[in-house]
């Protein structure tokens, strides 16, 4: 009897590993660009559609609640514990590791596109003290008025009338919310999630589009956007920042990874 129990105990890690092996993952890698140039914080000199020169000192935003679409139109949505902030990802150009996110627990199959929320959904935006990416200590929470800052873009421009030639755009809040759902199809070819194949989706995120896609922004006229009314044109531009640059498939190392 005891020996049987020991035997089962000994097998447990193996069983668990079997369970894990079926849960695959896909990786999303993000590169920031301005038009056709790579984004370099502080150093890069860029021009917006209005011809204004600018630099970027800070770029941060929330990518939340990612889900993958199957060819039949159904969705894979990662499941997370109710309290956790695992479905919220804070991308920060200054932190290389933040530009890579993994979607885990993925069933094998083909997926034709990805959707996520740029920002934080109303439920979490109005909830109490949170952890992880939603920890207010991350500096993306307005303390004088409850709510997350969905996107921060700050830098300098000789055209800015603000002190130090600075410009600061903080997009967040709003009724209706300035958070934006963004769907990106993978194009001709779906990604393949298989036991031996791991896909990586490379996204190119264009800061230039944030300043010009739908509503051209002139830094000379808008050196600061810190409330939902001023930031709404930027939120409407934000969806156009994202595109799928290319896809990769690599052999998956045995045992997940």
């Amino acid at each position, binding site marked *: 009897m005891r020996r049987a129990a020991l035997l089962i105990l000994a097998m447990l890690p193996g069983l668990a590993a079997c369970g894990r092996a079926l849960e695959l993952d896909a990786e999303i890698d993000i590169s920031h660009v301005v038009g056709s140039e790579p984004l370099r914080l502080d150093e890069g000199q860029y021009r917006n559609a209005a011809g204004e020169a600018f630099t970027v000192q800070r770029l941060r935003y929330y990518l939340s609640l990612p889900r993958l679409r199957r060819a039949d139109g159904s969705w894979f949505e990662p499941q997370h514990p109710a309290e956790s902030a695992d479905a919220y990802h804070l991308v920060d150009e200054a932190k290389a590791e933040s530009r890579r996110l993994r979607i885990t627990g993925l069933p094998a199959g083909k997926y034709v596109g990805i959707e996520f929320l740029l920002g934080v959904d109303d439920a979490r935006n*109005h909830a*109490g*003290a949170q952890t992880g990416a939603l*920890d207010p*200590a991350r500096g993306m929470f307005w*303390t*004088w008025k409850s709510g997350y800052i969905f996107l921060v873009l700050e830098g300098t421009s000789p055209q800015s009338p603000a002190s130090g030639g600075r410009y600061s755009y903080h997009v967040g809040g709003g009724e209706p919310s300035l958070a934006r759902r963004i769907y990106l199809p993978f194009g001709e070819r779906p990604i393949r999630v298989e036991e031996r194949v791991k896909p990586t989706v490379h996204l190119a995120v264009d800061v230039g589009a944030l300043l010009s896609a739908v509503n051209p922004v002139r830094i000379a006229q808008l050196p600061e956007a810190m409330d939902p009314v001023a930031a709404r044109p930027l939120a409407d531009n934000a969806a156009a920042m994202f595109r799928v640059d290319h896809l990769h498939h690599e052999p998956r190392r045995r045992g997940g990874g």
Partner: protein
Amino acid sequence: MRRRAVILLPLIVVVLLFAANGVLRQRLADAVESFPTPRPAVPPGWPAPRYDFSANPVTASGFELGRRLFHDPRLSRDGSISCASCHQQFAAFAHLDHRVSHGLNGANGTRNAPPLFNLAWQPELMWDGAIHNLELQPLAPLGNPVEMGETLEGVLPKLRADAGYRRRFEAAFGPGEIDSRRMLLALTQFVGTLHSADSRYDRDELSAQEREGLALFRQHCASCHREPLFTDYSYRGNGLDADSADLGRSVISGKAEDRGRFKVPSLRNVAVSAPYMHDGRFDTLAQVLRHYASGIQDSAALDPALRGGLSLNPEQQQALVAFLESLTDEAFLQDDRYAEPLP
């Protein structure tokens, strides 16, 4: 068998008190110090509170930790200002004699520090309703450069470096790092259980003049200062200025008509929490009533109920003041469990 238990039990208690690990000892000390620990409670006839304590259950250690954080000036950038600096128990946790409060380096705020009690019922916090959730409220004064001028990145290392706080956080929340959530939950356990529901009004011990005042109150004031919380938590203009310098609720709502509108404050403990109004312009209740009787300024923000002022003669005003004084909850003001803790 039973005899052995009789010998063992006190022994176990002694072992727990003196030999057990610091966390267990801390929990015992917290239970003693806060005894009986204030718990979320709904007095008969009161509405359901808005803050849900089920996700943040109050414990003796959580409450005691919150009390310490509330009274600790190290939460400010230069260690000079605690929450209690501007929220004094004898003033029902308002700031007595201060129209506005002074924070870091003597800088002045722009609005009167409100009293703190029955906060679990507030749908939104602050004069303009800027804060949605009680747990997040402490972040506003913590980060305001004219209040405590600190950041979470600044304050958390101070707490983590303190062995006493490390023990207290573990006693309250179990093993794990001190993070912003635990700090905010502990503060919420303290400020969320500042219960005031034991005035002479609540005990139905009013004098004849106070009763007369209550009748007038129900006739003229209770539509906004709704019993039993003595506020309906709406945002209204009460005719202080024809053109309000403070944008008030409109900063949050984005609506022009909310300019100069502020949250209707509760009137519990109002006699001890002077000065009055969002900018603390009135020092006495008599001045407040004179304003409502004869000082109302018209504006787009003015509440229709106040247009033309309230018709209250001087005796009626006196009766109303007498009634408002009956809303003072002495037991709350003197409750040692809310006082600055011993070091």
